[in-house]
């Protein structure tokens, strides 16, 4: 199980399994540089592997005014 917090929407999502960050981004409809993908205190690149139990923070970067 992977838990995903989406900012600034303040959504919490759970997924059974995603192999990589790129797969998660596609599932969320995000392009590579649409959001920071954060695990703990590190940033993840699209090829980074996700593990069971991961808590991932997705921080969208597009400012809206």
């Amino acid at each position, binding site marked *: 199980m992977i838990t995903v917090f989406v*900012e*600034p929407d303040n959504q919490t999502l759970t997924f059974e399994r995603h192999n990589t960050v790129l797969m998660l981004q596609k599932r969320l409809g995000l*392009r*590579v*540089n*649409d959001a*920071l993908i*954060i695990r703990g205190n*590190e*940033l*993840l*690149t*699209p*090829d*980074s592997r996700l593990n069971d139990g991961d808590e991932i923070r997705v*921080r969208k*970067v*597009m*400012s*809206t*005014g």
Partner: protein
Amino acid sequence: MKCRKCKATAEVALPSHNTAFCRDCFSTYFTGQVEKAIRRHGLINPGERVLVALSGGKDSLSLMLELSRLGYDVTGLHVDLGIPKSSGAARTKVEGFCELHGLNLRVVELEKEGLPIPDIKRYINRPVCSACGKIKRHWFNRVALEDGFQVLATGHNLDDEVARLFANTLRWDAGYLSDQGPCLNAESGFARKIKPLYRLSEFETGCYAFLNGIEIHTAPCPYSGGASFTGHKRLWADLEHQSPGSKIAFYDGFLKRGRPAFAHVEQETGAPLAPCEKCGSPTSTGLCGVCRLAIAVAERRAADPDRQ
């Protein structure tokens, strides 16, 4: 994915540059882009005092931190818009950031100046974002001039600049196209305005803020829904995704080949500017636009039975 420079594990992938960096090399890259912008466009001269407009978002706080690390004499300016549940949170982030890094900060409270944005929304019949932007620019310039700053820096990034250039191009607005760029020189009562982050995308400033532990204000303004620039940014994000490097190529190409052509044909046709009779800011109409707004708000507030 490995860092292109040192081969350590990368944390930042940048398709636009066909590269990826670890956090240390990304920091070096980020600094290099800011230095290149300053050097290429003569944004800051030695010894100049720089006033940095701070909203509490990733761009302005990243700019402030980077300019201070580069050794520039920087002071932050935050305009507290007076919007319930929003402005207080943004101000807290700005104050906490400046205290943490030992940076100077000035705060202008629009409530005290008689122009809180909720009153603009309530009493003035024009788009609130337009009036808010006008008021913020007024105070940025006014504080810069009154407090002896030579330069006013804002955190506009590449995405902001491309979206604005795109909007100006859609309208073929020769006036704006003649002077849009990372540096607007001081003249007629205006401080020099600079945008040192113009070479860096929103994603890159977001990465910088995160990797430097900057606590940012992320909630969108409750009044800003549907701003046209956001739609333009989405269009450009699609284009950049399909063709990495499109944004910087479009903007750099404009600076090199587009703007000079517009500057050449655009003649100064506006009325001459003089100091506002009330606040001293440059205006062509006796009272500047912000002082007229303040008077209109005060009159309508006084006539509002709900505010008696």
